[in-house]
């Protein structure tokens, strides 16, 4: 596998959609290519940080306003 091939398969690898053989090939490449390792590690960290942006809940009063509008809406 070349660096270019790894970059092409990166999203699949990050989303764990890559087939087992492809994962093994990527991991073999990562073991000997420090720049691709940084590529993968930083992308993995970015995705993980993004997932944390989804934490936290909407203010209760907004939810109550929404529920009230739904329940009182005329047909």
């Amino acid at each position, binding site marked *: 596998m070349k660096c270019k091939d790894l970059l*092409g398969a990166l999203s699949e690898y990050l989303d764990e959609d890559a087939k087992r053989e492809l994962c093994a090939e990527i991991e073999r490449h990562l073991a000997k290519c420090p720049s691709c390792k940084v590529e993968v590690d930083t992308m993995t960290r970015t995705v993980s940080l993004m997932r944390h942006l989804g934490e936290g809940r909407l203010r209760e009063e907004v939810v109550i306003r929404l529920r009230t509008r739904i329940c009182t809406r005329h047909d």
Partner: protein
Amino acid sequence: MEEERELLAQAKDGDREAFWELASPSVDPIYRLALRLMRSEEDAEDVLQETFLKALDRIQDFEGKSRFNTWLHRIAVNQGLMKLRKRRSDVFSVDAPTTGQNGEERSYELVDFSESALDGVVEGETRDVLEKALAELPIDLRTVVVMRDINHLSNAETAQALELPIGAVKWRLHRGRTLLRDRLSSYFQERVGSQGGGES
């Protein structure tokens, strides 16, 4: 899925409580999406309300071919885009080739920040940088990134919500993530630079 079907049937019969039970798990994700689309809390709340009221009005049109949550995402994107078009303040990008696509080799040094962002906890400043970088992404990339990485929709659900081929969703996701990562990399580079500046 069975429970969703039952609630849907009741909601179609006019049961508002059933509608709420069906729709309420999507309140937070739809607000998160609306907030990143509109970049304003007030507009995001409007989009949230409009999305749920539209879903209520059009409940008879929902055939259950996708998850209810996916359908709500689709309505929310349409409502948000309509509002933005009226405002005309957002530039809509297209999938024109830009730098950094799949397979393209990197021409600059990437800073390894994978250990810097502490144990997956988003520190305040990093969170702000990431939110700002997300807000600056073209809207088509931003929408996909929010749906996939913040709201945890699958590629297939995102494609369904946006009426796009899965390949386009994957491309936008990759491009969006790469731009965000590059922004974080420059941020950590600046931080390392400013910390090391006075030591020599």
